[in-house]
């Protein structure tokens, strides 16, 4: 990792008795979009806020652009931009004022008018920040993260709680950042976000990185299996679905049986026969091609959004 612009080694962070981050290590190369993918409470925000200099780690090494966020002060802040998960702006600050205000804090400044146009905020430039919709607020947060034309951009759950259309708009913006060769560290619990946007992903759970790789590499770990999700009118005998033809793995989550199968047609035929034997019926059956969700299930035994 000779070209690592972000380096995290054996990072720990506790809040009282709660161990939020437990030995996280990863590195991000310049120009890369790197994702921390994991469920809520996995330690993603704590990790990224330590990288932003907002929280102090208990131990471990952190470097961003070769600088320690804890001790490098303004030199560090000049090089990074961030969208925080929980933050806000003064209610009676107007959109254009907010962007210009934050731009003035930095030595290097992006063209604020260009940012307003790029983030489709020109029409709303005189509106109070408190009067913006969720999507507009998030676009403003992104614009403000770029006012100093930073080398590294931290995006903590940038699309959480947004409707699908707005989410896609944010994806376009992140893809634009990628084309501009910005280094982006993104945290998310949306599978499709990580798969679509990230060059590499670290899957995080219970404060630990459980695996790292490109989305393709990680999906390959699912060994080319297809995910079959079925709901039945009655529960089946324990472990019976795992013994069906072609099934590599079978788990139950809240009444939904998730099977990973290398031979989906044979598995479905075997499933139907088994249900006939048990006098059970199918309520629904869905098939999915391998995704990072499958990797997560395989490694943790849980679903991402449990």
């Amino acid at each position: 990792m000779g070209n690592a612009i972000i380096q995290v080694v054996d990072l720990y962070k506790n809040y009282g008795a709660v161990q939020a981050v437990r030995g996280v290590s990863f590195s991000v190369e310049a120009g890369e979009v790197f994702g921390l993918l994991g469920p809520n409470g996995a330690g993603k925000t704590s990790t990224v806020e330590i990288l932003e200099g907002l929280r102090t780690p208990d131990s471990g090494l952190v470097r961003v652009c070769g600088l320690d966020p804890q001790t490098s002060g303004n030199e560090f802040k000049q090089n990074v931009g961030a969208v925080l998960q929980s933050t806000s702006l003064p209610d009676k600050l107007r959109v254009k004022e907010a962007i210009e205000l934050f731009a003035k804090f930095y030595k290097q400044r992006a063209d604020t008018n260009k940012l307003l146009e790029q983030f489709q905020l020109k029409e709303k430039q005189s509106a109070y920040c408190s009067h913006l919709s969720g999507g507009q607020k998030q676009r403003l947060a992104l614009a403000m993260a770029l006012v100093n034309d930073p080398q590294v951009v931290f995006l903590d759950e940038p699309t959480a709680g947004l409707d699908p259309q707005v989410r896609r708009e944010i994806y376009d913006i992140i893809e634009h950042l990628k084309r501009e060769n910005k280094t982006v560290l993104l945290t998310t619990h949306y599978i499709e976000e990580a798969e679509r946007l990230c060059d590499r992903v670290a899957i995080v759970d219970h404060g630990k990185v459980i695996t790292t790789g490109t989305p393709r590499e990680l999906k390959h770990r699912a060994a080319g299996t297809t995910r079959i999700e079925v709901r039945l009118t009655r529960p089946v005998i324990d472990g019976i679905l795992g013994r069906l033809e072609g099934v590599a793995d079978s788990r139950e989550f809240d009444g939904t049986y998730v099977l990973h199968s290398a031979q989906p047609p044979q598995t479905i035929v075997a499933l139907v026969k088994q249900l006939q034997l048990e006098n059970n019926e199918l309520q629904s059956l869905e098939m999915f091609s391998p995704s990072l969700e499958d990797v997560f299930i395989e490694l943790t035994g849980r679903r991402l959004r449990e």
Partner: protein
Amino acid sequence: MSTTWTLTKMRMRLAMRNRAFFFFSFFMPLLFLFGGVGFFTKGSAGWTAYVLGAILTLTVIGSFWGLSVQLVTFREHGVLRRFRLAPVKASDMLSSSIISSYFLTLPIMVIEIVVCRYAFHMRSWGNLWAIFVLVTLGSAAFSAFGLIIASVTNTMQETQMINNLIWMGFLFLSGATIPLALFPGWLQRVALFIPATYLATGLESSATNMASLRELVTDIVALALGLWVAYEISRQLFRWEPEAKAPRRAKVWAVAALVPFIIFGVWENYTGVRLKQINRNYHALSSQMAGFLPGHK
């Protein structure tokens, strides 16, 4: 400095967009002025100057509420943590509170003085230079006291409760609302430990007796020391994060801001000069309006 100035402009702009700010910072002081002068002075130019001193004091100690309360709201709503990501220091946030509060208070004080001079026929302008120095130091010092409260309280509710308690003390024990000369002796001695007393007596002397800066040196030094200590303490205790709670020792540090006034209070009680002067001034003015004011003999 440019960051502080940028924040100062932003905070002034936000205050100007707030109706409550206009009510408490512009309308209320003028209401007090017209009420005070109309009710108490009965056309006496000497008493108009005395009331002006008191009204200026009330306006200046209003900085105690000022923008420090806004900082608590900013912290609670996560606004401060967004500023923390940028190259903004705690001292920038605190200084911008003090400076913007000062610039927002200054125009109303100019209006108060002009109104007293022309509408209420105050005989002279008083010692304007001394008034300016006291108003500047007083506004900064009381803003800084407010910042300490903002630093040691965890919620807006707590801030308002403590602010109200302290505000009442400033209001009624400093001589700004009830003349100190009307207090019993023991209470006059207690008043010498109240920061607002140094502002009130200083402004009253400069408005009524044209007191020079040299004569006001104790008031000026007390306010300057108070400002310095309060600013440093609030800088040390400043918190960006909504979930970061004030440690217990923070409240002890807050009390340390009173140390300059405890020292001056002990000194003034020992010499007794200030109390004599306060009583002499009041009775001299009272004699101009024999029989009208309470406490007059």
